[in-house]
């Protein structure tokens, strides 16, 4: 039976919500929705939370001075601009208020509709209205979803980048999510969007950290290994930004390779499944692709971290070999964000029409092959821009700062042509140039670059184009931070 109840929010506003039997519940909270389904009203399963002063204080800070989805002007995080607030309000399902009646609770915006399955998502299971938790897409459950629902490698890479950026934003403010997992990051591979949810158990500076149980497979090994110690024992490791960095690396690995980095064939204990798992995810955890310890390596791996290119391979080794049991060694979210952005530029479209991944990272042009379907790349389809930035203080000297693999109808942005722009939440997302190909020729079309000079030395005004030839070099604009770009074809 449904009935409408009324919540009173911290500022006295009244908010109606629909009471349902067996409301959707997680480990900590259960959720009701407002009649228009725009907001979720959540209460804690354990009502002792309702009186937990630390929780109240934490929520006050989360909604106020640490809120990246609200500009500083509107009471949000310090230094947060309107643009940045808008950007992150799409990346987080951030609480907007606390509830003070009928009991302590929180109000969050409902997630956008693309994070719910619809009646066409699966032929086998009725998933309509269920949220898109990431393990639908990264586990064997994937086979029950329609191909269209699963996106492609490019969309998975995009979500990895968005997630790294969101976690970097949290960490930059001194916050930690504390329970990043397949359940708390919803993904929509179809559109390449993701959203971080369950923001209430954040670790907030200066406030006693929440005791979050975490989710199997995402809990950092040191947290699981010390979880047997009594609450309050100083040897017990609690959730922090370091444990987030473990979960982040696990999620990125899952998005890109569709498997869990620690679940392999190794038997850790023959006493019980529970004990085996406790060691496999905890004190004895071993990366399935550890190059120095192959005890947990499955016989068939298919695509491996090496296929993702050097920047990501390096970070996965850092996260799951060096940093697995040494939290300080784990790559930061910023490092992931940078490596993923760099890797994004090497996306190459697979020419095999049946390739489900559709895109791959072309990191080795000497041996150009799609690692997902083993389709060989036609050498003449490889056209690349090599970016060089001015070495500061050394006139006339340039240093490599990246490579961009071109495809037809591609758009270039400021971060492709200027050395001082990084593709983060502050970057302007208006294309500055277009790339297209016709009859084996490739063209660079100026949209709005000032002082773009062709390899032959002519100024190319907006709306005009020039051909990209092997070996040609040009300057993207007359901006002092403009990059020097050289072209290679077929190599």
């Amino acid at each position, binding site marked *: 039976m449904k009935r409408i109840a009324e919540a009173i929010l911290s500022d006295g506003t009244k908010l109606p919500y629909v009471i349902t039997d067996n409301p959707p519940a997680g480990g900590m909270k259960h959720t009701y929705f407002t009649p228009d389904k725009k907001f979720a009203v959540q209460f804690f399963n354990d009502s002792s939370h309702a009186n937990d002063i630390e929780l109240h204080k934490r929520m006050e800070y989360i909604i106020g001075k640490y809120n990246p989805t609200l500009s500083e002007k509107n009471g949000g995080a310090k230094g947060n601009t309107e643009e940045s607030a808008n950007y992150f309000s799409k990346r987080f399902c951030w609480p907007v208020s606390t509830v003070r009646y009928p009991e302590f609770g929180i109000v969050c915006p409902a997630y956008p509709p693309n994070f719910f399955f619809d009646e066409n998502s699966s032929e086998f299971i009725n998933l309509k209205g269920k949220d898109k938790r990431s393990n639908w897409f990264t586990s064997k*459950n994937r086979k029950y979803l329609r191909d269209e629902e699963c996106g492609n490698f490019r969309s998975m890479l995009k979500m990895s980048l968005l997630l790294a950026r969101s976690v970097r934003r949290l960490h930059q403010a001194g916050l930690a999510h504390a329970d990043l997992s397949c359940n708390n990051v919803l993904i929509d591979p179809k559109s390449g969007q993701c959203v971080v949810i369950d923001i209430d158990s954040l670790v907030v500076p200066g406030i006693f950290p929440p005791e979050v149980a975490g989710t199997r497979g995402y809990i950092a090994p040191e947290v699981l290994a010390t979880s047997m110690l009594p609450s309050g024992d100083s040897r017990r490791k609690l959730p922090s930004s370091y444990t987030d960095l473990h979960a982040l690396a696990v999620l990125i690995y899952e998005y890109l390779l569709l498997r869990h980095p620690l679940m392999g064939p190794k038997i850790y204990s*023959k006493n*019980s499944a529970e004990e085996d798992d406790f060691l496999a995810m905890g004190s004895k955890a071993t990366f399935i692709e550890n190059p120095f310890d192959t005890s947990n390596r*499955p016989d068939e791996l298919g695509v491996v971290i090496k296929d993702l290119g050097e920047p990501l391979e390096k970070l996965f080794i850092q996260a799951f070999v060096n940093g697995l049991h040494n939290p300080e060694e784990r790559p930061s979210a910023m490092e992931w964000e940078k490596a993923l952005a760099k890797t994004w530029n090497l996306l190459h479209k697979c020419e095999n029409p049946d390739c489900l991944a559709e895109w791959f990272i072309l990191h080795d042009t000497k041996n150009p092959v799609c690692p997902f379907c083993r389709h060989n790349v036609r050498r003449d389809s490889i056209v690349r821009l090599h970016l060089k930035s001015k070495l500061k203080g050394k006139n006339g000297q340039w240093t490599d700062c990246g490579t961009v693999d071109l495809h037809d109808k591609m758009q270039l942005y400021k971060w492709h042509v200027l050395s001082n722009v990084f593709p983060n939440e502050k970057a302007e997302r208006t294309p500055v140039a277009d790339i297209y190909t016709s009859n084996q020729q490739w063209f660079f079309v100026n949209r709005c670059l000032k002082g773009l000079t062709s390899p032959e030395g002519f100024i190319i005004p907006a709306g005009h184009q020039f051909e990209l030839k092997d070996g040609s070099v040009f300057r993207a604009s007359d901006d002092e931070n403009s990059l020097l770009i050289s072209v290679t074809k077929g190599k």
Partner: protein
Amino acid sequence: MSDFSRRLPVYLLLDCSGSMTGEPIEAVRQGIKALLSELKSDPQALETAYISVITFDSSARQTSPLTELMLFKEPQLKASGATALGGALNVLADCIENEVRKATETQKGDWKPLVFILTDGSPTDTEEFRNAVQRIKSVKTANIIACAAGSNAKTEYLKQITDNVLMMNTLSSGDLASFFAWVSSSVKMSSQKLDEKPGGAIQLPPPPQGFVIVP
């Protein structure tokens, strides 16, 4: 990944004695349907939970062997006869021995099984019941939750099987539906929290309204 994932065996022991005739047995059928559809739409449960149904009337049998959710066929349920709960516990012990993979040096074992018992009476096979309780205690590898449904159910027998005993006051279709919904939340919660603290007590969601935990 599938090769290294463990199964969470879930056994449902369902009372199909004569007193369940009519609305109650129909509610149980609907309950199983709802349970399956609910679990299939939960990614963790879909990946790990395997279901088996053991029914008991004047005797007991495994009606559906341990099967993954997508392949599970709903059992034919008919209500008649007495309440061979003891027989059902023996069938359960056999099934756990035969179906649940043990951890060995070369094989990843299954998770500890979850067992839900639903009965509206008390065992009529009291002697077998006494022995079966001892046997289940010695197997001791399962988390058992027993639910006494309606005013005729005797919780003192269930208390001998497990500490986790629930009581629901009526055999109404509403209460039975809530029971199955609660079973589904329990399975979902367990499939998420499998790893924590080996040997720790099982965590279950709060029981539905109108259900009482028997101390």
